[in-house]
């Protein structure tokens, strides 16, 4: 149900909001009455209940400016979903250093910068929900994903420690670790490889974005104020 926008409605920021999981989450949370703010490197259409910023999450000044605008215009931030991420499947022996650096910049540094700036705003109301994105590729030790999986393994440790540091401020930090989902992120991965990966899951099907949204729904609900530092792996990995 789409509710009328009021200042009492919670504000949710999703990074990487233009396509894939991010685009889905924007619609999902607008429909649930959140005032949704999103960002991505490229422009995206705005609509009722949704505001978009052209911001690269690795650009510290731009992220700070976006959070400053959220503080000025909304006066609060309740939820941050660190969805922005990139992958590059390649043999470790062939992976260019620049590619590895770019993956860590977006996946880890982007999450770190957004968390830090969001938590500064969230602490003003002693409430916040941060959801980061890990991956089953780390737990499955997936060949060809050494750099991507490592950048996401860093997210797991970051999530666990951030949860402890931010708990006194009323902010929870959790992570969801999706299986392969039909998005651009796995576009270049062969069908056979995806099938082999699925066979290593307890529940042998490809993931859907609604599976991810379901976990995020749980993490961000007010009743989940005793749930922090947790990583939920989808598919029974």
């Amino acid at each position, binding site marked *: 149900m789409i509710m009328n926008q009021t200042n009492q409605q919670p504000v949710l920021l999703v990074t990487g909001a233009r396509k894939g999981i991010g685009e889905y989450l924007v619609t999902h949370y607008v429909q649930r009455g959140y005032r949704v703010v999103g960002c991505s490197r490229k422009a995206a259409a705005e609509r009722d209940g949704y505001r978009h910023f052209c911001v690269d999450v690795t650009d510290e000044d731009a992220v*700070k400016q976006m959070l400053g605008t959220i503080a000025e215009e909304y006066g609060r931030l309740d939820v941050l979903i660190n969805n922005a991420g990139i992958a590059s499947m390649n043999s470790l022996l062939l992976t260019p250093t620049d590619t590895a650096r770019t993956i860590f910049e977006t996946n880890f540094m982007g999450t770190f910068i957004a968390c830090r700036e969001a938590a*500064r705003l969230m*602490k003003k109301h002693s409430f916040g929900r941060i959801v980061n994105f890990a991956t089953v590729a780390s737990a499955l030790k997936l060949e060809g994903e050494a750099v991507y999986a490592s950048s996401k393994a860093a997210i797991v440790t970051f999530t666990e420690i951030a949860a402890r540091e931010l708990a*006194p*401020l009323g902010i929870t930090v959790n992570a969801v670790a999706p299986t392969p989902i039909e998005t651009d992120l796995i576009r270049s991965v062969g069908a056979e490889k995806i099938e082999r990966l699925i066979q290593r899951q307890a529940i042998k099907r490809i993931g859907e974005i609604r599976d991810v949204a379901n976990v995020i729904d749980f993490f961000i609900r007010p009743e989940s104020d005793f749930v922090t530092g947790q990583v939920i792996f989808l598919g029974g990995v």
Partner: protein
Amino acid sequence: MPDQERLTQAIYAAVDELNEQLPKGVRVAKSLDSPLYGPGSNLESIDLVNLIIEVEEKVKEAFGVSITIADDRAMSSQNSPFVTVGALTNYVSGLIHDYESN
């Protein structure tokens, strides 16, 4: 150097914000001699973190400059800028000066 009176007022405004979150017994007096860290201070580490964030915000409001207080220089300095309100004020004054000089 930045206007010292304006800077002191910005620091004290940050102290006010911190004190609102603290129980009476551990509040920080608005004096340059007030201890923030080490012997004589009752602040928890999270309180000091909150104060530093407030100071960064008040400095941005008062001077329009975005500073990062807890950088490597501050953390490794032999004379910690976090010992007293006065030490913090002097350190922030230097950061603003550096920012305005660049």
